């Protein structure tokens, strides 16, 4: 945590600026919903009757799937028109990270680092297949969990806690209650 990374207070202040400006001008930041929107957009291409125009729905769209149909078809409508605020925000977020990395920000500095962090390599070896499978499974659990919780680190922990939302504190409690013991268990032993 040295090259390309700001001291913690400056990094925190920059993050705070992003969260504050988003609430000031539009709404709190959130990311994980967009995984569902991306899925639904693909699903709608494969199976066109999964999102249908419906004048009686609040969003103008309905779905036979209960989740996409929830809140007046909000997710169904977003998947039909991907050029909406939240989806474009997430794409731009990827652009911002790429831009920062190009402008001497944090980026992987070796072929191995592009596939796994050193802390993983020290503990589990440098086989990329092992790391990729672990990341796939982790991603699966993380997004299933985030959708069950109705938000992720951005939406619940950062945006939620800044607004003093009860849900934000409950989420943070749940997340760190498993993440910290598991990370200690997995990575605080030196085997190599």
């Amino acid at each position, binding site marked *: 945590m040295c090259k390309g990374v700001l001291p913690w207070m400056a990094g925190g202040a920059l993050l705070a600026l992003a969260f504050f400006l988003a609430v000031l001008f539009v709404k709190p930041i959130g990311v994980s919903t967009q995984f*569902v929107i991306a899925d639904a957009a693909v699903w709608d291409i494969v199976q066109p009757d999964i999102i249908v125009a419906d004048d009686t729905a609040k969003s103008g769209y309905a779905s036979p799937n209960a989740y996409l149909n929830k809140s007046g078809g909000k997710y169904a409508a977003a998947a039909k028109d991907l050029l909406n605020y939240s989806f474009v925000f997430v794409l731009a977020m990827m652009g911002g990270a790429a831009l920062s*990395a190009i402008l001497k920000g944090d980026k992987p500095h070796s072929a191995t680092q592009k596939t796994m962090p050193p802390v993983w390599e020290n503990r589990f070896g440098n086989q990329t297949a092992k790391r990729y499978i672990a990341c796939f499974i982790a991603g699966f659990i993380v997004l299933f969990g985030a959708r069950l919780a109705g938000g992720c680190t951005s939406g619940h922990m950062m945006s939620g806690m800044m607004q003093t939302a009860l849900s934000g504190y409950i989420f943070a409690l749940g997340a760190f209650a498993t993440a910290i013991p598991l990370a200690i268990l997995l990575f605080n032993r030196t085997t190599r």
Partner: protein
Amino acid sequence: MELTFAIIFGLLFGFALNRAGATNPENIINMLRLNDLRLMKAIIFAIGLSAAALFSGLAIGFIDPAHISIKTAYIGVLIGGALLGIGFAIAGYCPGTGLAAFATGRKDALFFIIGGLCGAFIYTLSFGWLAENTAVFTDIAGGSVSLAQTGNDKYDALITSVPGTVIGVGFGLVMMIIAAVLPVHLLGPKTAPDQDD
């Protein structure tokens, strides 16, 4: 106009995640194993500063309370959070930082994203069943509530005897103090050569 905002704030957020060190799974894992808490300090400081700024802005009428959006608290928030924590510790990525990390050239993040798309899809298919057959969507303490009064009538506050500004700004200050006093290193051998700064 809205899409212009989406692009500007998205770029800023992604840039900030990268400069705070959050797109590097090494930093996330070292934070979670309590080896290097600088990222934790940055996150706690960010929550504190943005809370103090938000509630100050609400108090002087600079921020429209309609922009407040309080998510509902229910049993699934705790369970889902706990599930997220498991994957967070294994990979060192969360949904936002996984996407951002992939954009900085990390290939393992792509597998995290593909796994995430699959997990989100299975959840999409499971939602109806979960809603009908389980109690995971049972509200906690009234559901969409905040500790502090925000001025948005859609959401109740748990604490009404003290003005929302005092609670919100007070919470923000406490978080910033915690960020400052939290030690950088707690467990394990010191890994980074510059860990003392």
